[in-house]
């Protein structure tokens, strides 16, 4: 920095922006997506079709999107936060209505050749809106109860709409991700305690709103041996696959549980199991370590940001990433009920890949524009 003038540092050049992109992080993300392709290749019985090739291709596109997003100035996102949020809410309502008409769970809208999952957009939109909101508050305001009410509404509106779909996993992610943001933004601890008490009090109500299959999943989670061939089948088979992998795994393309179809949803929610059966605990730890690296990168970006919006966005994305990884892996290992959360960049599926890479783009963008000056307008 050569400018000694007060306040705003000089706008940075394009080369500097490129230089500031966390290329190490990009490498880690690419490695994760690569592991995804390997696992999908194996899940298809040693074929690039129908998943592995498309996965790699989709990652390429999503990576391009991420780099573009990273180079967009945060002030753009600051101003787009609310429109994006409102749009995602409208789309969620549309999906709910379509689901009512189509009888049963409906989570996406078809627009031309694309399937859009509005809940994925909502995840990112909630992060942006909350970051924007707290960006405009000082510490004292952030700690006040009244100032906490609007963020609560911001979080609970999409949560409610997602629950109706019903998509317990996404609802849980938005709620916990939002809570993490409120926590770092400075909401008083007693409010979290109160919320926790409220949540426990509301459990019976939530129970009554749940679908039969969701209740079954929760009960099965609490006692998987209740019905080992019915609802507990998925968890039991997944645990067998992971456990039988042992330290070094059964070897690439030698997983029996997944190749013989004992694993349900092996290419989506249970891709971690497919991978771990063949690559063992060593492979699992490598994959988890790569995700841990992403999280550490996220924290360091958040901590280095000069503006509060950036901090909150980076941290929100990190929290979202963590929740994805934790919920998915804990679920396939029988630590959480089966809720239908994919493993980011590894599971087959386009929308989640795009939304995760978009979020990562926002995070990297925070690093690129870490010393930008943003208006405090609410």
């Amino acid at each position: 920095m050569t400018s000694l003038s007060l306040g705003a540092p000089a706008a940075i050049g394009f080369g500097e922006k490129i230089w500031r992109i966390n290329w190490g992080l990009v490498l880690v993300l690419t490695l994760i997506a690569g592991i995804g392709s390997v696992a999908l290749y194996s899940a298809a019985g040693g074929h690039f079709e129908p998943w592995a090739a498309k996965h790699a291709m989709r990652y390429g596109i999503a990576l391009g999107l991420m780099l573009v997003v990273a180079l967009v100035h945060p002030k753009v996102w600051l101003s787009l936060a609310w429109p994006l949020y409102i749009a995602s809410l409208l789309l969620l309502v549309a999906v709910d209505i379509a689901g009512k008409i189509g009888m049963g769970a409906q989570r996406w809208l078809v627009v031309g050749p694309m399937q859009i999952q509005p809940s994925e957009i909502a995840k990112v939109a909630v992060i942006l809106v909350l970051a924007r909101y707290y960006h405009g508050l000082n510490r004292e305001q952030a700690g006040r109860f009244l100032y906490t009410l609007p963020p609560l509404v911001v979080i609970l509106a999409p949560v409610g709409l997602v629950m109706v779909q019903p998509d317990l996993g996404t609802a849980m992610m938005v709620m916990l991700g939002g809570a993490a943001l409120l926590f770092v933004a400075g909401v008083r601890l007693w409010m979290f305690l109160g919320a926790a008490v409220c949540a426990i009090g509301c459990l019976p109500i939530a129970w009554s709103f749940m679908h039969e299959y969701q209740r079954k999943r929760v009960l099965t989670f609490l006692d998987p041996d209740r019905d080992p061939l019915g609802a507990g089948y998925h968890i039991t088979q997944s645990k067998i696959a992971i456990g039988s992998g042992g330290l070094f795994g059964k070897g690439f393309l030698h997983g029996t549980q997944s190749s013989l179809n004992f694993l349900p949803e092996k290419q989506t929610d249970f891709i971690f199991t497919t991978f771990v059966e063949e690559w063992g605990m060593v492979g699992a730890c490598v994959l988890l370590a790569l995700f841990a690296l992403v999280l550490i990168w996220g924290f360091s970006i958040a901590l280095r940001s000069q503006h509060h919006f950036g901090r909150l966005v980076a941290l929100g994305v990190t929290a979202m990433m963590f929740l994805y990884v934790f919920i998915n892996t804990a679920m396939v290992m029988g630590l959480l009920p089966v809720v239908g959360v994919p493993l980011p960049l590894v599971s087959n599926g386009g929308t989640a890949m795009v939304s995760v890479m978009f979020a990562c783009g926002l995070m990297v963008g925070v690093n690129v524009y870490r010393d930008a000056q943003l208006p405090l307008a609410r």
Partner: protein
Amino acid sequence: MIRFRKGDGERSGLFTRRALLLGGTQLTLMSALAGRLYQLQILESQRFSTLAEENRVNVRLLAPARGLIFDRTGQPLAINRNNFRVMLASDRGRGVEVVIERLDQILSLGEADKGRLLRELRRSRNFQPAVVRENLGWEEVSRIEFNAPDLPGVFIDIGQTRDYPDGDLTSHIVGYTGRVSDDDLAGRDDPLLQLPTMRFGKKGVERSLEDDLRGKAGAVQVEVNAVGRIVRELDRTEGQPGDNVLLTIDLDLQRFANDRLQAQQANSEHKSGTVVVMDIVTGDILAMVSEPGFDPNVFARGITQTEWKELLDDPAHPLNNKAIAGVYPPGSTYKVAVALAALESGAIDAGTILSCPGFIELGDIKFHCWWKGGHGGLNVVGGISNSCDCFFYQAAQRTGVDKIGEMAAKLGFGQVSALGLPGESPGNQPSRSWKQDKYNVPWQQGDTFNLGIGQGYMTATPLQLAIMTSRIANGGYNVQPNLLLAKAAPREELAPPSPRLKTSASSLRIDPRHIALVREGMNQVINSPSGTAAQLRLDADNKPIDPAFHFAAKTGTAQVKRITERERAMGITQEQLPWHLRHHALFVCFGPIDNPRYACSVVVEHGMAGGATAGPIGRDVLLETMKRDPSRRVDRFRKTASL
């Protein structure tokens, strides 16, 4: 007005603290995941590996080929034929309902079969398949194969079904197989019997030699996927086929006897009777016909309800092997046993003359002789050849029921033989204690009279009549009937043993002179002009005949229903009675006279007169048997290539 950085230092400090706290929490949770991995993949790895193997590897038993059954000349009696069947496998019936519905559309299974399938599959473990339908034609097989993608767990399997080329003819000897029942399982822990495709001998030799014919299970280890479809074979141990057996039956003779029995009853309302031909030296059963027979192939392919009911309701009882399970009053054929008992006990000797005035009175009851006019005075030879009832009333009275019982036991009455076929009846040899136990009434003189002519409480099977005749013909040796000529493991040579000329049976310790007297009586039945079956003489029509074929016999006509005095007075003839009330016709014979080798018994149910109805059959069958004697012919055993 745009404000910058108002109190930013303050809130960034808080942010940093809380972010680090959050990061720490996340790290802790990530470590928990690693801990869980350690628990699953290191601590419990062994257990989960086993579970994964159990998921993947499925041991299936292979049913061995059932042993083949041949007659003594090497002609096939029971063989195996390929059978295409549809199988369905699933894990405890998960998700099979849809598949069963689709199968129903293709094969029209019917509700009963669908229910059975569902039950069997719910019970089965480890994708043990159930049989959907057997004996498929090519069209059905191709329809299943065509629809295979929509039928997870369904596969075509080539099994074997029993085939009986001469089904009707040997149905009672060979028997048939059926699905394994709970009774069959008792006392047997062969895992093979748990196979749904397994068949178990139900009747005849299939039953009595079940443990030899079954063979040993093979096993195949296969890798299956989650819907039970076999992905590949990992290991295979072939089973060991069951032993092949040669029976003592001569199929051609069996056919001859069967045809002869049918021809003799051509005019009868029902055709029902038996022929048993036995080698008196070895005990080999050369023919054992029980008419009518049934088609065992119907059982092999699965009998329908109507077919089963039809067989059960037939008044001639086709399912009943009358040669061993039918019990008849032996009538006059039993007189040879009484004569032997009387001679052995010393009650009479060769010179004892007993008179026949046409009837004997005991108290106020008249015991009639079949020859109303009376035979006059007769010795034992004349008593037998004329079949004089009065002679045997008196001989029996002199001998007593106990001594008669002793001799009858030596000759095989009142007991199950060593033949080994299931369902053999011991008949009934009445005794004092038997009557006391059964009716709580002491034995009466009149009972002894009736026993003397083989009537009253006395019953015997056609097999027992053949055994009696054999033991008299072979000079008093305890020969036992036998159906199994040779047995060999699948790849060993199956050949009949060399013929024996001397019996290996023990002696019954009967005076040979007494046996000679009885045999002479039986000789005169045929070969004396006064004999009851003199019309059966081989040279009766003046055709020259090889003296080596001369034979001896005894006729018998057994009352089914007591002839009342009124009927006797009215002179009602047998032809006027309904079929089921007419007398049974019996005939026993042996030959050749000079050097006996074969014995034969014939029973024609409700055939009215032994000499007239059963006699010609016995004569012709015995003659055919003697003509087929191996000493007169080249070795007729064909080494079958199919072995």
